[in-house]
């Protein structure tokens, strides 16, 4: 028998099952291009880890801003690697926001997709944390003050949360804190891969059994390749022609412990969730705001009263588009200079976000289900 098998297969049996996995006709037909998003996010994260690895070789937490200037100006193609890392963040968050919206649109969080949905929200939360840490590592005019207020907020907490703050940040914000945050930035980014793997397992669980399917290769490999090239094209356009998209320009100057910047907006990907922080007062208010925003997402499978497997109706889609508009407006608004009207609008937009999930969605989905 072994004579009929290829030479390597008899010596490395795993190869055969790997090949079977690649070509077995188990995948459903007509999966849309957008279903490639999780794979694209994984690929972008791998690329992000590689560019981050190069940056970490030259990054110096004791002189963070100047070491980044050194990378941009004195390392061969350092500016390009730095731009890859910066724009890679935008690409990842763009894809993550889009796939969260897609899950809402398709109601894929309903049975049997709940666990997959929890992992998606967890991944989103973890990426926000990693993104925030990366933003802080830039040690610019704005992120310096953001870190300073975060650390002083964390140190102001009492009991166990305060102990976590001390353990995480080490001490008053400074070179020592940045040195820790480099480590957390990298380790937590690697932890995202763990969640991505769990997501993959959950996705396989949520998929219906296929009777007359197609193989991964060549059908879906060709689709992945096309999706990847278009993704790379968007990435290239942004890297080379809009390298600082959605960033606060003030943050490209050095940190100054004596001068507060006039506009404190973080990069765009933190705004949809982070901007809510201003609405509730105090440190606990900010923590509550961010956690509440993620909590309504986690509770979504139960807030949506519709029957599982039922395609979304017109009303559901309309409400979702309004919600998307609400989040986009909140993001754009937060980039404007602070004003009284801006504060009022931010409160209203935030209130609508919770109103959508806690009132509109349960009510109308129950109405639709009847």
């Amino acid at each position: 028998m072994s004579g009929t098998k290829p030479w390597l297969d008899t010596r490395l049996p795993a190869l055969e099952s790997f090949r079977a996995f690649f070509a077995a006709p188990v995948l459903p037909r007509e999966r849309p291009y957008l279903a490639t998003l999780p794979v694209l996010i994984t690929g972008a994260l791998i690329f992000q880890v590689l560019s981050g690895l190069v940056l970490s070789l030259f990054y110096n937490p004791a002189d963070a801003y100047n070491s980044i200037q050194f990378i941009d100006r004195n390392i061969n193609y350092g500016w390009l690697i730095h731009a890859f890392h910066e724009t890679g963040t935008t690409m990842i968050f763009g894809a993550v926001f889009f796939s969260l919206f897609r899950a809402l649109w398709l109601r894929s969080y309903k049975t049997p997709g709940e666990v997959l949905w929890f992992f998606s929200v967890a991944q989103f939360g973890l990426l926000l944390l990693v993104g925030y840490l990366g933003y802080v590592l830039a040690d610019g005019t704005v992120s310096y003050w953001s870190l300073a207020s975060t650390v002083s907020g964390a140190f102001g907490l009492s009991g166990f949360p305060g102990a976590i703050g001390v353990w995480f940040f080490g001490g008053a914000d400074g070179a020592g804190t940045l040195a820790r945050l480099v480590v957390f930035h990298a380790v937590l980014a690697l932890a995202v891969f763990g969640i991505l793997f769990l997501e993959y397992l959950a996705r396989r669980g949520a998929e219906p059994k296929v009777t007359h399917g197609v193989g991964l290769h060549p059908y879906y490999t060709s689709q992945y390749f096309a999706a990847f090239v278009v993704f790379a094209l968007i990435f290239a356009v942004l890297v080379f022609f809009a390298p600082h998209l959605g960033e606060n320009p003030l943050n490209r100057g050095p940190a100054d412990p004596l001068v507060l910047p006039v506009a404190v907006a973080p990069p765009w990907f933190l705004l949809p969730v982070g901007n809510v922080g201003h609405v509730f007062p105090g440190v606990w208010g900010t923590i509550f705001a961010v956690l509440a925003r993620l909590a309504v997402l986690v509770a979504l499978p139960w807030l949506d009263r519709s029957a599982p497997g039922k395609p979304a109706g017109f009303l559901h889609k309309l409400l979702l588009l309004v919600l998307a508009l609400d989040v986009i407006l909140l993001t754009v608004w937060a980039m404007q200079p602070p004003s009284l009207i801006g504060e009022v609008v931010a409160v209203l937009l935030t209130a609508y976000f919770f109103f959508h999930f806690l009132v509109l969605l349960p009510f109308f989905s129950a109405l639709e289900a009847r």
Partner: protein
Amino acid sequence: MRRLLIAALALAVLAAPHARAEDTLNPPRWQSEGVFGSYDIAALQRGFLVYQTVCAACHSASALHYRDLDGIGFSTEQIAALASGVKLASGPATLDDIFKNPYPDTTAAAAAFSGAIPPDLSTIVAARPGGTKYVYRLLTGYAAAPADMTLLPGHYYNTAFPGQQIAMPPPLKDGQVQYADGVTASAAQEASDVAAFLTWASDPNLDASKEIGLRAVLFLVFLSFVAIATKRKIWRESV
């Protein structure tokens, strides 16, 4: 028709530099602006002259080395000659020295300007909303203060500066430098040129980025057509 279009395009490309040479000040324009912008080497060199003669007297640019000036088209000999004219505490500057900081520390700098420290100019264009244009408007924005406004001691009225009071005295005036290329050194021209130079100082890799970017984007556009066509062909054959 197509030939006419190509001719018109060629004419537009040929005419463009002339149009730019005519008047870049009204309204102020820079070649580096826009998606396909690149640096105007002549403007950068004029801007460096203004920078070295005027700005460098008070401002540092600690991210820049003298050797970096090859990026604005100076030869190594020119840069070496230029650097040797700069007196550092350790002697004449060399190619690998960073731009001279005119003040030994921030306290000395603050003392000279009623408490305001002249900011480092390495990333000033990147770090200000409006970038190049902001620098230009600031340098040309000095005016007499309105009658109902009392300025802080040692401050000047400036329309572009946030709060309209700036501690920097008006730095530029007509004929402050002599341009080697014969361009008239009006205060506005000097401001425009030094804004161009500081844009380069903030982002010296702009030209390289646009050049690589154009190739990468063209390649990926081509590849996406191929990839999508391949995918469609494979799927057509499956059913």
